[in-house]
């Protein structure tokens, strides 16, 4: 097996006396869908920001796509994609302008942009809407477009921060089809969600409680370990013990 795409060893982030993330150690292999769960304030965002190269850790070591998160943050940024529920696309630009903009940021050539955007529009069945403003699209479509844009430069890893919040159940499933498709192409998917059924779609899940990773395994192993039949109950058992919030 090749080297892990994400590797962390005792990764810690402190804010003054407050330990937001404590000694996180895990590895994520290429092409895995890695679910990152935790109650509000458990430290998910902190961990994600460190891995994206936005925050410098207080201690510990980590590599993302083979690059050191202390010294090679620019290289990391070239090799990851990022999408969140809040930030997605420029609403006052058209679908095509958004694609072109993001592709341009990652240095794709004009020919590549043309080819990629056509494939992308075709995959999402948005060819007719290519010239429409993003603000005119329903939320679900926007989220799908947003994801496709986040992986347009074929990153090694894509970070998804609650990508499906508030999306209708049909579109939510279509969104997961896109995730599977990306994972099949070898892109590692790092995803947070509040929907427990979506936790089941992940290859492995980590559950953070109070800044610490309390559990890390495949959904079925976790259910066996905690002797329950749904991820919902696994999560509740773990999160109930949480002392702090936000």
């Amino acid at each position, binding site marked *: 097996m090749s080297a892990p795409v994400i590797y962390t060893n005792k990764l810690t982030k402190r804010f003054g006396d407050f330990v937001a993330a404590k000694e996180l150690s895990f590895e994520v292999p290429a092409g895995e869908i890695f679910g990152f769960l935790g109650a509000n*304030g458990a430290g998910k965002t902190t961990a994600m920001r460190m891995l994206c190269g936005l925050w410098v850790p207080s201690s510990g070591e980590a590599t993302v796509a083979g690059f050191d998160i202390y010294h090679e943050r620019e290289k990391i940024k070239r090799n990851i994609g990022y999408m969140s529920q809040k930030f997605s696309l420029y609403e006052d630009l058209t679908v095509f302008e958004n694609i072109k903009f993001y592709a341009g940021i990652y240095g794709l050539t004009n020919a590549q942009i043309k080819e990629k955007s056509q494939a992308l529009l075709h995959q999402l*069945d948005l060819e007719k809407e290519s010239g429409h403003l993003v603000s005119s699209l329903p939320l679900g479509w926007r989220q799908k477009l947003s994801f496709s844009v986040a992986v347009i430069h074929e990153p090694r890893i894509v970070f998804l921060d609650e990508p499906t919040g508030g999306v209708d159940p049909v579109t939510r499933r279509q969104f997961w089809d896109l995730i599977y498709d990306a994972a099949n192409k070898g892109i590692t998917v790092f995803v947070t969600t509040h929907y427990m059924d979506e936790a089941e779609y992940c290859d492995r899940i980590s559950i953070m409680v109070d800044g610490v990773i309390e559990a890390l395994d495949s959904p079925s192993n976790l259910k066996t370990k905690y002797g329950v039949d749904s991820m919902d109950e696994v*999560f*509740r058992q773990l999160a109930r013990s949480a002392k702090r919030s936000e």
Partner: protein
Amino acid sequence: MIQINHITKTYNKGIVRALSDISLNVERGELFGLIGPDGAGKTSLFRILTTLLLPDSGTATVAGFDCVKDYKKIRESVGYMPGKFSLYQDLTVEENLSFFATIFGTTIKENYELIKDIYIQIEPFKNRRTGQLSGGMKQKLALCCALIHKPEVLFLDEPTTGVDAVSRKEFWEMLKRLKDQGITIMVSTPYMDEASLCDRIALIQSGTILSIDTPEGITKAYGEILFGIKSSKMYQLLQDLRNSPGIASSYAFGEYLHITFKSNTNKISEELMTHLQSLGHTNLDLKEIEPTIEDCFIKLMTNTSSLQTKPI
């Protein structure tokens, strides 16, 4: 308690249709859920009922008062918690609560009984600025503020959005207790799994009501036999099922895939299993299951062709 007759609401001079011809009734003392994704029109409906917006057409009454003509009376008798938790971040917990109490012409003391159960959980932090509270605690405080004047009807617009699973569960337990005290509650949520906690629900999508019934009534009306299936290669399984003849619908649902057959015979399911085994699936498991609200929502959405989102 709440009567809605043929309400239609559009924005941008009729270009965006938020609600089309909505009609529903909520009985006194009922916990009524409005279930649907973002953009379905839930907030628009809440704002019309709380007299914040005027409908384009149709009428609605709350506690017997007309939403347009008697807006002042309604404003005296309802409690409302908007989608964003609306609290002053720079005031303390206690200051927020006593401010809203005074605005509604009452005091914390007067109606303390009603909010006691909830307020007790955040009371230890009463001198803390609201901006420094967690999402779950803010939500509890917002609920206290909406309840402080002992409203007859309580409107809660997506109170559990962005709140983690544990806090969500606690929140629903609080709503149950409020209902037991005789308050009529109308609550909206995008989480389908919360639907079963309501007395009755309306499924709403793109401004249209798909169905109104008790949660049991809705799942009973599913009308087809639903199966759950899993194997060791789930994504592969989903793709193989989509290419299999005889499968009417198939989609991921947590640990299992949910499928329905075009016709239900033992033979057809056996054939499917053989077919899947031949494609190399192992650890296959197929079982009949009870449909959930989410299954019904998906079915209603795909059946109503005008509401259907594009397939990939």
